[in-house]
């Protein structure tokens, strides 16, 4: 890429973070006190039942949502400081492309917003790397769901972010395309040393992609599993299956009522 490789991603430290929405009787406690941290350059998968607060946590890390209490620091800085430095990139479940901009225009806009100089070559190169060469001038409406997600990923990577936040980026994509995206795209961001948090529903995806899988229980979320995925396990099919099994069991505990979790533990 034209840009020099950015500094490695920051360490992310969440301390006793809570978030509640609304007040009075309609108050929802989306995140109960939660403390966890992610090492610099780590690629972590967050897994848990839907509605447990994963998106909210991601949005707080990005500074899009203020914690109700507790703190979030990235290498000792607040999210706002990193926002202004153009350090973040985020992909949403629906690609959230601007429909009136072409593929090229959507990707170039990210550089502009991040206050980077316009760099058509970098944009073109990124389009090629997500396999969309030839679609530079297409509008989002002319692309398939999988193609749109690839544009969203390209938009994330073109600013060479220090923190990459992926909120079920392939959630709306069919299984086959998803498997392909999962093998094609992660190498692109793993190489850059960015700290990456990825929310996913798929255990297989989590184990195959991440260095670490954090498993949440249903709301109010607690961490019911925190599993490191050693590099060796990735090439060993048996080890990968065993890990996937481990994650699934932990996830089942988190999913169910506490009683089931105890039963599982007793077995």
């Amino acid at each position, binding site marked *: 890429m034209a840009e020099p490789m950015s500094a490695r991603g920051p360490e992310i430290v969440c301390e006793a973070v809570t978030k509640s929405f609304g007040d009075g009787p309609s108050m929802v406690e989306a995140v109960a006190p939660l403390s966890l941290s992610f090492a610099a350059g780590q690629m972590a998968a967050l897994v848990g039942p839907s509605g447990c607060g994963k998106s909210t946590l991601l*949005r707080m890390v*990005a*500074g*899009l949502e203020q914690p109700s209490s507790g703190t979030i620091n990235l290498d000792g800085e607040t999210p*706002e400081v990193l*926002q*202004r*430095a*153009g350090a*973040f*990139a*985020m992909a*949403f479940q*629906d690609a*959230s492309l*601007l*429909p*009136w901009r072409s593929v090229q225009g959507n990707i170039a*806009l*990210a550089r502009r*917003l*991040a*206050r980077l100089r316009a760099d058509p070559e970098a944009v073109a190169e990124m389009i090629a790397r997500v396999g969309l060469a030839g679609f530079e001038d297409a*509008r989002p*409406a002319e692309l398939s769901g999988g193609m749109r997600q690839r544009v969203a990923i390209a938009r994330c990577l073109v*600013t060479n972010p220090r923190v990459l936040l992926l909120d079920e980026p392939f959630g709306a994509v069919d299984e086959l395309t998803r498997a392909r995206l999962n093998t094609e795209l992660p190498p692109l961001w793993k190489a850059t040393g960015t700290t990456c948090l990825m929310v996913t529903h798929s255990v297989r995806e989590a184990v195959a992609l991440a260095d670490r899988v954090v498993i949440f229980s249903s709301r109010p979320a607690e961490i019911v599993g925190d599993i490191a995925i050693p590099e060796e396990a990735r090439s060993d099919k048996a080890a990968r299956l065993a890990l996937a099994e481990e994650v699934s069991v932990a996830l089942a505990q988190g999913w169910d009522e506490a009683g089931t979790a105890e039963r599982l533990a007793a077995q």
Partner: protein
Amino acid sequence: MTALAREQWPATIGRVLASVAFVLVLWHLAALTVAGSYMLAGPVVVAQYLVENSSLIWRALVVTAQNAAWGFLAGNLAAIGLALIVLMIPQSRMLVASVALVVFCLPLVATGPVLRVLYGPGPGPQITLAALSVYYTTFIPLLVGLRAAPGNWFDMIRLYGRGAWSAFVHVRIMAAMPYLIAGLQVAAPAAFLGAMVGEFTGADRGLGVLTLRALRALNVEATWAIALVAASVSMVAYWAIGWLADRITPSRPEILLATTPAPVRGPMAQRALRALVLGLATTVIVVALWWLVMEAFSLNRFFAKRPDDIWHYLVTAPNATAHRAALWTASTATLVQVVPGYLAGLFLGAGLALLLALLPILAGGVLPVAIALRSVPIVTTAPLIVLALGRGAVGTITIVAVMTFFPALVACIQGLRQAPGQVLDLMRLYATNPLAQLWHAQIPAMLPAFFAAARLSVPAAILAVTVAEWLATGRGLGALMAMTASTSDYNLLWSAIVVVAVGAAFGYGLVGLIERLVLARVAPEQLRR
């Protein structure tokens, strides 16, 4: 409306041409049957008149179109300005919208003569009336459009540490564009209408002047010819904006000119109090604006009445009771014609839309014609209805009904299309009969559009009734305003303006209240969260 415009131009044009030919034949046959009476001139005579008087009509058309264009520009700029104020100061939304509504409810029939006195001869009143008749229908969709973008788009802007300005430049402007265009499309014929009403009030040139002359001389060919020209120009303006817009924003969503009302929330007393405060604040601002404008231009108190003059005239003057009685008589005369016409137009429009939903084969042919006819400013064709149905109540009620019929029809057809396709598929899967589908899925989806049309039709219906009364019946508020304008009884004229504006705003609020109650029962998910 816009999705249709985009669909397939050749097919649409073909259908339109076929409909035009069909209408021409019908028209010709009708003219043959009633030959000799003073109501209908056949297409041949009208064409003849147009050819013989082409240079006269052309000159008038240029004048009217010019005034309409300036008013179009001014009114839409005002709408954009108001929308930007609301965007910058979100708390001002309700207040700005209410004040804008009251100003929109000013009866053109009365503001016309007043403006005529203020401006003297020349195009001032025409341009002002054109501007007044367009700004509200652009302002309301713009309000929706500026907030129409999904939250994620704004999150992306914030993620890169950018603020409201970037969000405005990169997201809001483009997201609002389809709404602005929809507003401009409706505005084009409305501006033409405003300009013509302005010409009715004593201009010396323009299509409005020719209309008045033809009507007074009972010149049937001329009346028809001018109405035809005015209607065609309005339709062409409507389609031209749609065509241009299709080139600028290729993927416009089909949108409804509706602001979804806030839900009925909180205890009754609190809601009533909020409405009361809003009403009071609106009144204070409108009265202050009124007074300020009069004083700022130091307008002559003889014709530019101040709020306290009207108060004196209606309340503290020695014969205030007589003044109030005169207004009351005129108001009730107007009310008994505007209400039946309004309701008839609205429900016939909705009814036809439902019928078309059951017989979808017909819908493809009716919608383009309905959209075309909706863009015809009814005032330009009102003289025809007067000729055809006479100067009695039937004619007036019909004019009002036609005015509300087409917007209701178009809105309801669009609303019916909003029914979620998957729900309908599910119902078909269970072989639910079409009536049950209509009742459970399509009507609830249609209601917001229906009510949006119902709300906007209130001022439109009042415009129609006052114009009809003024041109034809000689009764009611429209006639009262015309009469007082010509006898220089400015106290009574201004009082009538107040009554009409307050009545229209009140009717609009009433429809909004009914809308909220109905939607809360039938389709609570349609209320703004």
